[in-house]
């Protein structure tokens, strides 16, 4: 019941928004998001056995991997939809003032967003590889038009690349799924629980295709080409969702395929995870150096964090992956929303054109700086702890490499962010927009508080544990 509710609420709401053409937009969006969150919470506390989809057993007391993703998605969507309404107004106003052409209509955006939520929910709830594939492909379809919100040439291009590359990738995943079913004994289902005794040879082939397919959707380098385009061109709230939720959903595919590995092949699979994790870190590091566009920088940071998550899976860090994903999602969402505000006020995504954010938009500047530090795992960011455990698991050699790459990424990101935040600002082009951008910091601030408090609590607990 609850599960079907989780699925139907967003879809119904999407339909409703579409039919009502923008009337009651805010109410429907918020209530749908709220209901979704409440239902998720309900599932969590009730712990309905029927929705036990599949927990990865990494030797830790992880409740549900899929459920974790669902919870993150739900929470993120609620926060983003709270942000969205006022953002839409400000964006429209800014477009008006700058004389830009009109983008997608509001209700299309909202209904697509709700649809997007529905597909992501389906992904998180999927119980077998077939459904998972359908759901992941559906997320692509629901999110692609969102990228083209502003209907500019570049956003169209980003959407096209996103569509084509992700479909290609997801096609590979379909092939992988076929191969997986070939690997199984005749007549067995593809449910996550049932996939156990796959034929190793077939499984390898299946694994490679699934890894490439879902890895592409996750944005692992060198499959990441679409990611910076899509994430930078999408409007800020959509970027937040793409980076915060969608990547996690895709990661679910990777987690599940690894979990399906027959005995003796886990090492083989882990090798891929580690290798692509490191490559992702490497790519992210070198693409952030010399980056010219701050939203693209954030996108590469997402590549980095997906790399880290994959590394955590590869090094058997257990529940940590989920923790990392959760806090990455929150932090990244906050950063994307802030980036959206800065973009709103400055009207450009070019790093060199943005200086003195702290002076011109003090709150956004503060958020931008703090967010950068948190995403790079500076304490009290919870990511610090997850990265710490990752390094511990990885051993001194790989740990050293990971830390070095993280350091490079930090240096490059800090350089950009500090350069943007400090310095003297040019006078505001439209003071009204600046004012609006400052007002749009409520949700990011809330998220920042949330992250810092949970991080500080984690820190206090750790300190207390060792001080005694």
């Amino acid at each position, binding site marked *: 019941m609850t599960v079907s509710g989780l699925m139907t609420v967003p879809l119904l709401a999407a339909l409703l928004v579409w039919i009502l053409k923008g009337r009651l937009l805010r109410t429907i969006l918020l209530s749908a998001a709220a209901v979704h969150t409440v239902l998720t919470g309900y599932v969590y506390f009730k712990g309905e056995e029927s929705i036990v989809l599949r927990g990865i057993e990494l030797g830790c007391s992880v409740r549900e991997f899929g459920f974790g993703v669902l919870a993150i998605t739900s929470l993120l969507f609620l926060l983003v939809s709270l942000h969205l309404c006022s953002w839409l107004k400000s964006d429209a106003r800014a477009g008006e003032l700058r004389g830009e052409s009109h983008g997608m209509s509001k209700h299309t955006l909202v209904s697509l967003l709700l649809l997007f939520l529905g597909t992501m929910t389906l992904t998180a709830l999927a119980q077998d590889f*077939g*459904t998972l*594939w359908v759901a992941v492909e*559906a997320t692509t*379809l629901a999110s692609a038009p969102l990228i083209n919100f502003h209907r500019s040439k570049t956003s169209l291009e980003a959407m096209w690349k996103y569509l*084509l590359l992700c*479909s290609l990738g997801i096609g590979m995943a379909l*092939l992988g799924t076929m191969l997986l079913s070939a690997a199984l004994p005749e007549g067995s289902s*593809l449910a996550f629980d049932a996939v156990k005794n796959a034929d190793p040879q077939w499984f390898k082939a299946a694994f490679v295709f699934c890894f490439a397919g879902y890895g592409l959707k996750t944005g692992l380098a060198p499959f990441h080409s679409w990611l910076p385009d899509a994430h930078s061109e999408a409007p800020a709230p959509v970027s937040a969702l793409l980076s915060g939720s969608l990547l996690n959903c895709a990661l679910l595919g990777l987690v599940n395929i690894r979990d399906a590995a027959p005995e003796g092949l886990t090492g083989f699979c882990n090798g891929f995870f580690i290798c692509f994790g490191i490559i992702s870190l490497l790519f992210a590091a070198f693409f952030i150096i010399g980056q010219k566009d701050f939203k693209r920088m954030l996108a590469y940071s997402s590549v980095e964090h997906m790399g880290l998550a994959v590394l955590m899976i590869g090094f058997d860090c257990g529940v940590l992956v989920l923790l990392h994903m959760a806090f990455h999602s929150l932090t990244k969402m906050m950063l994307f929303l802030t980036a959206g505000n800065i973009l709103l006020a400055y009207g450009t995504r070019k790093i060199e054109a943005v200086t003195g954010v702290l002076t011109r938009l003090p709150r956004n500047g503060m958020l931008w700086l703090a967010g950068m530090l948190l995403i790079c795992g500076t304490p009290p960011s919870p990511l610090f702890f997850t990265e710490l455990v990752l390094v511990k698991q990885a051993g001194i050699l790989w740990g050293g490499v990971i830390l070095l790459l993280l350091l490079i990424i930090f240096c490059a990101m800090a350089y950009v962010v500090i350069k943007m935040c400090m310095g003297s600002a040019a006078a505001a082009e439209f003071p009204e927009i600046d004012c609006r951008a400052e007002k749009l910091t409520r949700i990011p601030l809330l998220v920042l508080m949330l992250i810092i408090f949970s991080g500080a609590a984690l820190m206090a607990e750790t300190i207390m544990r060792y001080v005694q």
Partner: protein
Amino acid sequence: MNDWFGIVPALFLLSCLLLATSSRMLHLIRLVALQGILLGVLPLLSEGGHWGIAAVNIIIKGIVLPVLLYMAMKRASVQRELEPLVGYSVSAVLVLLFCGAGFWVAERLPLNSAMGPLAVAAAFTVLLTGLFIVAARKKALTQVIGFLIFENGITLFGIGMMRHHELMVELGILLDVLVLVFIMGIAVCQINREFAHIDADKLQNLDDLPDGEVKK
């Protein structure tokens, strides 16, 4: 009955060759439609085929998708692929190579179905041809067609393996493909409107190249 098992994959192989060497959009669309119908028919030839799915398959892949593509072609007013990245004669040779690769792979797979190696070999050929067309053609519409071919190859592979998904999943896959092509069709039209051409090759504004680099 067994003859059909031989003939259908052979038809697929032939279609691949034609797809790779044809420059006219209309031809391509027709060939894809043919492939879709074949895909719908094929499961019926074996035992345990599902009539419903077959019908939906034929309707969507054989009729709806080609129509959508045709409409997009009309709206975007593209007739032919003029300057492919890889020439047509080379493409033909490559398809032959793909075919060889397909047979090579199929021979090595532990297959136990009646349809066996031929279907799998054809599937691989179709799949690779699809990928090749996506990679080697400039027009956005051709790329969509290439993707469809790729998808057809995967489906053919599934049929060749005699594995069936659950009904919902099959339908889900079909629905996804349908929506995908629909959206891509819209995108093709938009690209045409915005850029006055639908060369995907010209979509190169988003990059991370250092300043002052000349694009290749």
